[in-house]
């Protein structure tokens, strides 16, 4: 059984598409790894897998071992810097060409989700994050069914639910919270993503997709509100080009000046593109926000496993 050596399983859910499930999953994974935990990421978005792109490993292919698949290693554990290992599995790694459509009806998706949960050799993991497609359909039902059947109660930490602030998004995410209630999946908390954008020119904050909707929803449902994540185009740049985030002088997040990067640039002043994503992420303004949210996820998971 491939899940047996995993300590905590965390689902990342949202009824709405494009709210940042995959980027939240990515950042939770990086933050957990920075905190020294070994992490696995399973992408069950079969028709639109984004995780390979997020970690910059689109060209990777899965290797077959007797009786299962080996996940892709993003980086191994490093004792000198104290980071935990990070491994990833996605349908994207199984496609011959990246632009290929995966046109599958429900039963086939169900079979694939089951296979992902039973046939991937994760080895020992502190955390398995499962990134999901939007909705409450085949993938979600199969995931809930299989996990409730095969995973131990103490393994299943619960779900992190992602939303954006506007009413159109929370309307769908409310359905997802009801889905969690009906299927008996515990909700660890709600993250409000894309909450505000700070103009890099004049530092004026605009709430492009409004603000506060996620918190109101969390209160309505009596679940924990993990926090707001602003839009940071530098994070996207980091993902898409591998450039270390840079901020204008005097940029502060939670009272800390982040305009001087922790990562030393190369001698010629260019930013190291070769450094591991996990180290470069430390320079992103979102890293400190995710650090505190990750701590909450960790404590929720530990509570579950200790009963």
């Amino acid at each position: 059984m491939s899940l047996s050596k995993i300590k905590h399983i965390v689902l990342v859910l949202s009824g709405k598409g494009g709210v940042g499930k995959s980027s939240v999953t990515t950042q939770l994974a990086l933050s957990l790894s920075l905190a020294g935990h070994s992490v696995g990421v399973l992408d069950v978005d079969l028709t639109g897998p984004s995780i390979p792109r997020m970690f910059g490993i689109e060209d990777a292919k899965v290797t077959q071992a007797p009786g299962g698949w080996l996940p892709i290693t993003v980086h191994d554990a490093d004792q000198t810097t104290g980071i935990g290992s990070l491994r990833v599995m996605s349908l994207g790694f199984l496609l011959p060409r990246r632009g290929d459509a995966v046109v599958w009806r429900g039963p086939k998706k169900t079979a694939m989700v089951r296979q992902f949960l039973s046939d991937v050799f994760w080895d020992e993991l502190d955390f398995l994050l499962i990134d999901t497609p939007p909705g409450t359909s085949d993938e979600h039902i199969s995931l809930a069914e299989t996990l409730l059947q095969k995973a131990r109660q103490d393994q299943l930490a619960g779900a992190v639910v992602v939303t954006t602030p506007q009413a159109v998004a929370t309307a769908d995410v409310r359905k997802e919270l009801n889905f969690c209630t009906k299927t008996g999946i515990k909700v660890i908390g709600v993250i409000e993503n894309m909450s505000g954008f700070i103009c890099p020119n004049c530092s004026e904050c605009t709430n492009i997709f409004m603000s506060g909707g996620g918190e109101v929803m969390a209160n309505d449902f009596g679940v924990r509100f993990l926090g707001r994540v602003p839009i940071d185009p530098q994070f996207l740049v980091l993902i898409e080009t591998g450039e270390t985030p840079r901020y204008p002088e005097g940029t502060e997040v939670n009272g800390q000046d982040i305009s001087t990067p922790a990562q030393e640039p190369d001698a010629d002043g260019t930013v190291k593109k070769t450094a591991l994503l996990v180290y470069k992420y430390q320079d992103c303004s979102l890293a400190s926000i995710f650090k505190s949210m990750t701590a909450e996820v960790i404590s929720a998971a530990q509570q579950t496993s200790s009963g």
Partner: protein
Amino acid sequence: MAPSLEELEAVQDVLANPLKQKPQLVAPEPEHCPGPESEQAGVADSCAGCPNQKICAAAPKGPDPDIPVITARLAGVRHKILILSGKGGVGKSTFTCLLAHAFATNPDTTVGVMDTDICGPSIPKMLGVESETIHVSSAGWSPAWAMDNLAVMSIQFMLPNRDDAIIWRGPKKNGLIKQFLKDVEWGDLDFLLVDTPPGTSDEHLSVNTFLKESGIDGAVMVTTPQEVSLLDVRKEIDFCRKAGIRILGLVENMSAFVCPKCKHASEIFRATTGGGRALAQETGIHFLGSVPLDPRIGMACDYGESFFDSFPDSPACAALKGVVRELAVQVGLDGKDIMLE
């Protein structure tokens, strides 16, 4: 050796198999099931030993008897346009509503909007008809009317509580989409806009199968500029090509954000690979235009108002009008006829 998906070739098979009444199975479908509705049902290699084999083999084969019914029901619909995107949250529903409002500004044009996003319906909220319910008469189900000339159908109208989750597997979703086409009294429409969920799965296959005979004008692709989104849209384009759906064009949404204070334009979803325009060029699709990220569009959607009426002078409105005109030309209409200036 790296395993890859040998099943990918089966796309043609999935597309070629019209949806039919699923036979009553005695056990869940096995992993390599060709699909109980397919021509191969009960006779494929993988059917050997399956408890359903006899049932599947005995199920009626041939075209779906409901398709002619759908075709008859939609005989009065002049143009059918799908709004697609592989990616979620790029603005499919927003664009569908904007398009509907744009077409409906002409009082002589009647527009219908069908929301096939079963698990996350957004259209009713955006068009301000969230609390409507469906009325059933002898002629069929009556759609909700957002305006005198704008009809809407969505699963949201059927929910007892607004926040109820619709926890359905594929076949059930297909059944409802069929009913939306077969049982809804659409009447004479100039446009039927079909909003879809993200992905390339049941809903998309069903809409294509059910509408094939009555004719789809084509699909509009919606994307945002960043590669993470373009990647999924590429898959959707691949799907359309394989399914034989004409692509009318591609719209890039949320292109740039202009700070309301200093007018500085930021590329929030930066187009590191050239954005929608480059993708359109690469895949040989007509580029309909880019729409800037304007927070007021989202606000208009939250309140169910028409963005065109509320902010007629905004740059986003001008860009949208351009996109609508381009699209109208693509479906063979004179751009000036449909928009009131």
